[in-house]
Structure formats: structure tokens, C-alpha cells
């Protein structure tokens, strides 16, 4: 039994056999050929290139069909490389000169290119080295007549294990047989993590020493909540996880019957329960789990997936298709919330010492008006569906809000000039995620239609804690009295000015916080689709009057730890089955 630890990337527990998507080493013979053989070898090489090209076109098509058009573009670079005439000519002339077999020559040329790409400073180009490696392997497999790499097939349900998961590796896998993903590299936004969440299977990423500890035939347990990966568990551990898995399964089954019911307390307090989404593919689970609407549509993936910002048309199509599927329920689209370095190439020397206090989100948008307006115009165009709202992230003061709103007005004017229709009364909201925004919440509320509290940033900026830093991450506390007071201030300010207040941060999806938030009179909870039914179940089983009392008690307590213990005790008594 080997215990490994990684980052939890998609929740749930999975137990199963290993399916290794390994980069099996390429074996290359060093042969010297005759003139006659060289001629045939060149032909073989060109056929391999052609056949690889066909494979990639097929993969591209599959990806576009299953994941959406924007994903397919990843493969355009592959195709361009294969069409590189200089590369082909060089390979052929090298073959003629050295009389070596084509896989030998091609491997060496590609390896050199790969190495020179890896050595580049530019992050984007550096990553292209993995495209080069992918191409290299595919072509060599073709030359050697080995199709393994091109058709990875899972025959029975298994947990997919890989060093790194690329779209081209996963595309041909039978998705119904995947029990989970574990990768040695990657983060919460890597391909494996995103795919796992879309498929609703557990996933753990960034697992050190994974590949050297695992062989085909192993059994693994993955816990997508804690990030634990156990290879060949002993009987006791296996039993523990099987019981846990069974419990989770029963619990989620018990939730099925409430999917179409409203999120209303026993004594009649109804709130809106919406979902946070990152990718269009998540819409299916949003609908399946009975969400009221989308409380936070993160648009960042549109920008991260590709080498350049998406066009107005591309964005318009995405926004519109999502809005249509969710109609008549609302879809709140958050404008770009990324660090500037992710969006534009930053000149050298502009490295930020404190990126979270730096050039990100709305601040970047103001510096790149064309990009910002392109997004706003796309949202406005799609708003004719009738259920779209705009939300601005990281507003720190009223001037920023005025400015952001003036961008909306300008975009509206431009569309009017172009004779393009949009929803004249589109609702505008701000994310409340900075302490400064809370302090001026009443003033902000006069300018917008709604608030949505982003707890992750609000806590980070209030408590000065980076949750990713293990030395201080224990200080990141949902139930710190300062955090609770800020939430209360925001809700009260919003209500005083007659607007609704929601929460789209992780705290909204924490079962421990539900009583407290209901008691503080939060109007909307926006949570991950996977946890939606659970939160709904809690809301439907409690009394609003109790929640008010509990929240008052919390407000009177001084210690974060004390509050957490208090809430845990209440939850354990009332909901013994809910995993906390």
C-alpha cells in the first residue's frame, strides 16, 4: 500500500483498476539503408505524415463535437507543424544524406526542435514543445506501424492515470468507462480537472511521484475531496473507503427527489439557488441538479483556451447558447477576471511582486478597452434572450463602477449605431470581494441591481491570507467574526437600498455555513452544480426563525474556531448524514 497526496480537483471517491495512459518509451532502430530502400522509406515517411494529419483532423472533429468548437483549435497548431514543408524537406534530405531510417532521422530533428522550444522564455511557446512531442510520437508510431498512441481504448471501467493529460490523449477514451483521473502534473484548471468535473467523476492532480509508483493492474482509491491517492490499499483501508463511498452514493440518491423543488425553508423563506459554471459543458449538470439559474458564469476559459482573445462573434455564440438553455432563469455573466499576465504579453520587467494586489480583473479591462468592449458587446448582443445580467469583479471604489458602467453605455451606443438589438434594461451587478467595497456598499448599491459576495477574495483580502500558502492557510477562515460582519454589512446595505444580495464564493456551498447565511438573510446562493442538491436539502429542512437565532448567536461570538465548533455541532445533530 502506498499513500500519495495531491490536489483535490473534482469531488467524490472512486475505487478501481488503473488505466495507464503512459508515455511508453519510443524504441528506435539505427539502420543504414540502400538507395532502393531509401526511396521506399521516404514514401513510408510521407504516408505516415499524411495519415497522422488525418488522425488529428478526426480528433479535432470529435473534440469539437463533444466539447465545443473552441476546443478544436488546440489541434490547429498540430496540423500546422505537420504541414511544415521545411521540416519535411529537411527530414527527406537528411535521410538521403545519412541513409538512415526515417523514424531515426525524424526523431532527432523533432527532438532538437522540442528542446529549443522548451528553452524559450515565452510561456506560450514553451508549451508548444508538448505539441511537438505529441506530433513526434504520433508520426513515429505511424512509421513503425504501431497504432497504440492513436487509439487509446478503455475496455472496462477504470481510473485513468497519466503524467499529464492532454486533450488529444483523452479524446478517444470511452467517457462512460472513466471512473476518475489522477495526474502527476496539473492544477485545478488543467484539462484533467476540468474534464473530471464535467464528467462528474473524482479527480486528484499534482500528485508527486505518481508515475514511478504505479503499474498496470494496480488498484487505486482516489479521494477527490481530500486529495488522497492510495495505491493497492490494504483490506482495512479499502473497506473504510467503500463504506464512505456507499454513504455518499446513498446520500446523493436521496437528493434526487428534491431536484425539481424550490429552495424554501420549512417556515416559508425562499431563496434562489443557482450554479457557478466555468465551462458550457457544465450546463447539463446545472439543469440535471435543479438549479434556478447561473449565479456566476466565469468567462475566463474563453481567454485561456486560446492564444488570443475570443472574437465578439465567438463570445456572442457561447453566451447566447447558454442563456437560451437556461431561459427563463437568469444567467449572470462575470466579465473577465484574470491577472493581466494571462491576457496579454507583459513586457519584461513588469513582474509583479504582489499579483493579487496588482494588475488584474477590471483593472486590466480598463487598460485594454477594445478587449473589454468586445466582451461587453458580445454579452449585450446575447442579452436579447432576456435573462442575461452583467457582473463586474474586483470593484474597489465607486469611480471604478462609474467607469465600468460607462463602458457598458458606450457599448450600447455602438450597438445602437450598428442597428443591433440588445436588452435595454440589462441588469448590472458587482461582486463584493474587497473590504473597501463592503464599507461603501450602500453607495455601490445605488448604482447597481444586485450584489454577489465573492468569499474567496473577500476573505483573502480581509484576513491577509493566501490560501495556497500552506504555512498560513489555516488562517483562511469562513467563520472569522470579521468575515461574518462584512457579509452582514453587505446584505444589510443591499436590502436598505432595495437590491438583492447573493453569494457566489465557496462559502455559499459549504453546508456548515447554510444556517448562518440564511439567518443573515442572503437572497441567493450560487454554488457548484455538484453540491447544489445538498444545499437545497439543508435549506428545505430548516426553519428560517432558527437560522436567524443561530446567526445572531454567531454574531455574538468572538472566536472563529468557536463559531465553527458551534455550527458543526448543530449540523451534526440535525444532519448526521451530510459530509462536513
Amino acid at each position, binding site marked *: 500500500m502506498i499513500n500519495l497526496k495531491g490536489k483535490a480537483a473534482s469531488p467524490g471517491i472512486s475505487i478501481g483498476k488503473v488505466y495507464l495512459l503512459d508515455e511508453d518509451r519510443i524504441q528506435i532502430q539505427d539502420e543504414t539503408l540502400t538507395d532502393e530502400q531509401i526511396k521506399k522509406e521516404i514514401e513510408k515517411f510521407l504516408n505516415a505524415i499524411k495519415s497522422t494529419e488525418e488522425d488529428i483532423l478526426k480528433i479535432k472533429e470529435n473534440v469539437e463535437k463533444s466539447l465545443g468548437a473552441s476546443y478544436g483549435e488546440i489541434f490547429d497548431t498540430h496540423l500546422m*507543424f505537420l504541414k511544415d514543408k521545411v*521540416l519535411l524537406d529537411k527530414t527527406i534530405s537528411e535521410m538521403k544524406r545519412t541513409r538512415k531510417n526515417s523514424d531515426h532521422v525524424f526523431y532527432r530533428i523533432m527532438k532538437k526542435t522540442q528542446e529549443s522550444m522548451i528553452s524559450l522564455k515565452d510561456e506560450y511557446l514553451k508549451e508548444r514543445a508538448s505539441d511537438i512531442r505529441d506530433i513526434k510520437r504520433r508520426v513515429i508510431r505511424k512509421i513503425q506501424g504501431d497504432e497504440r498512441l492513436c487509439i487509446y481504448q478503455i475496455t472496462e471501467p477504470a481510473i485513468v492515470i497519466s503524467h499529464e493529460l492532454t486533450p488529444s490523449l483523452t479524446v478517444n477514451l470511452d467517457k462512460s468507462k472513466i471512473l476518475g483521473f489522477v495526474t502527476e502534473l496539473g492544477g485545478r484548471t488543467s484539462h484533467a480537472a476540468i474534464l473530471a468535473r464535467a464528467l462528474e467523476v473524482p479527480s486528484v492532480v499534482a500528485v508527486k511521484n505518481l508515475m514511478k509508483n504505479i503499474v498496470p493492474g494496480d488498484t487505486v482509491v482516489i479521494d477527490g475531496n481530500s486529495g488522497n491517492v492510495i495505491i493497492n490499499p490494504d483490506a482495512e483501508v479499502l473497506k473504510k473507503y467503500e463504506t464512505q463511498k456507499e454513504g455518499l452514493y446513498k446520500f446523493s440518491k436521496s437528493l434526487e427527489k428534491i431536484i425539481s423543488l424550490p429552495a424554501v425553508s420549512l417556515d416559508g423563506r425562499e431563496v434562489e439557488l443557482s450554479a457557478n459554471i466555468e465551462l458550457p459543458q457544465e450546463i447539463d449538470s446545472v439543469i440535471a441538479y435543479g438549479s434556478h439559474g447561473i449565479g456566476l458564469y466565469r468567462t475566463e476559459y474563453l481567454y485561456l483556451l486560446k*492564444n*488570443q482573445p475570443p472574437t465578439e462573434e465567438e463570445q456572442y455564440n457561447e453566451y447566447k447558447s447558454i442563456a437560451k438553455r437556461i431561459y427563463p432563469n437568469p444567467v449572470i455573466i462575470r466579465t473577465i477576471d484574470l491577472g493581466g499576465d494571462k491576457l496579454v*504579453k507583459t513586457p519584461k520587467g513588469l513582474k509583479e511582486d504582489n499579483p493579487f494586489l496588482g494588475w488584474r480583473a477590471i483593472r486590466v479591462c480598463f487598460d485594454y478597452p477594445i478587449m473589454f468592449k468586445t466582451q461587453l458587446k458580445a454579452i449585450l448582443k446575447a442579452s436579447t434572450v432576456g435573462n442575461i445580467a452583467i457582473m463586474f469583479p474586483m470593484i474597489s471604489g465607486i469611480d471604478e463602477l462609474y467607469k465600468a458602467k460607462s463602458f457598458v453605455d458606450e457599448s450600447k451606443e455602438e450597438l445602437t449605431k450598428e442597428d443591433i438589438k440588445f436588452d435595454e434594461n440589462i441588469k448590472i451587478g458587482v461582486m463584493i470581494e474587497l473590504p473597501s467595497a463592503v464599507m461603501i456598499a450602500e453607495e455601490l448599491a445605488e448604482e447597481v441591481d444586485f450584489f454577489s459576495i465573492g468569499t474567496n477574495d473577500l476573505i483573502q483580502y480581509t484576513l491577509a491570507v493566501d490560501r495556497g500558502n500552506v504555512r498560513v492557510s489555516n488562517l483562511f477562515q469562513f467563520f472569522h467574526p470579521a468575515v461574518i460582519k462584512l457579509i452582514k454589512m453587505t446584505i444589510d446595505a443591499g436590502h436598505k437600498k432595495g437590491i438583492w444580495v447573493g453569494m457566489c464564493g465557496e462559502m455559499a456551498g459549504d453546508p456548515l455555513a447554510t444556517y448562518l447565511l440564511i439567518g443573515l438573510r442572503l437572497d441567493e446562493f450560487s454554488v457548484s452544480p455538484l453540491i447544489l442538491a445538498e444545499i437545497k436539502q439543508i435549506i428545505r429542512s430548516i426553519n428560517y426563525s432558527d437560522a436567524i437565532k443561530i446567526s445572531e448567536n454567531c454574531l455574538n461570538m468572538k472566536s472563529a474556531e468557536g463559531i465553527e465548533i458551534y455550527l458543526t455541532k448543530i449540523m451534526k445533530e440535525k444532519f448526521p448524514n451530510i459530509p462536513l
Partner: protein
Amino acid sequence: MVKKELTILNSSGLHARPAASLVKLASRFTSKIYLQKDGLEVNAKSIMGVMTLAAEKGSKILIIVDGKDEEEALKQLIKLIKNKFCEEN
């Protein structure tokens, strides 16, 4: 042989799409076309070559064209780079 030094103006530099349009244009001519940057020389008709040049916004590259249609080729390439590969408006 004709030469010209130019500054890359488009924001993403010679990334995939701009590199591809440069290669596509260069490949239309029979002349030999090379790009030089910081002592590194690559064939402008090779996408891999052009990408390994890692020419970002603001970097200077030297275009060297040698062949029958060199004048026209250089003219067109300059136009493409000055127009920022038509990627921005």
C-alpha cells in the same frame, strides 16, 4: 539579396497565428527567406522555425530575402508585419 530590419508590433508577437500567416506568405515566393533575431537565423517558410525565434512584441527581426522575386517578397512581408498581421483593429 535584400534585407530589412523591422520591429514586431502586434501584441502576441510571432505566436501561432501570426507565425502561420507569415509562413504562408513567405511560402508563396521562390526566393530563400530567412529571419534573424539575436544571432539566431531561421527559415521563414517553416512554422517551427519561426516559432522558435520567439519574437515578441517590440523585438527587432532582420528579414533576408534572396532570389528572383526578392523585391516583391520583402515588400509583402514588411506590409504584413507593419499591419500587425491584421490581428488587431
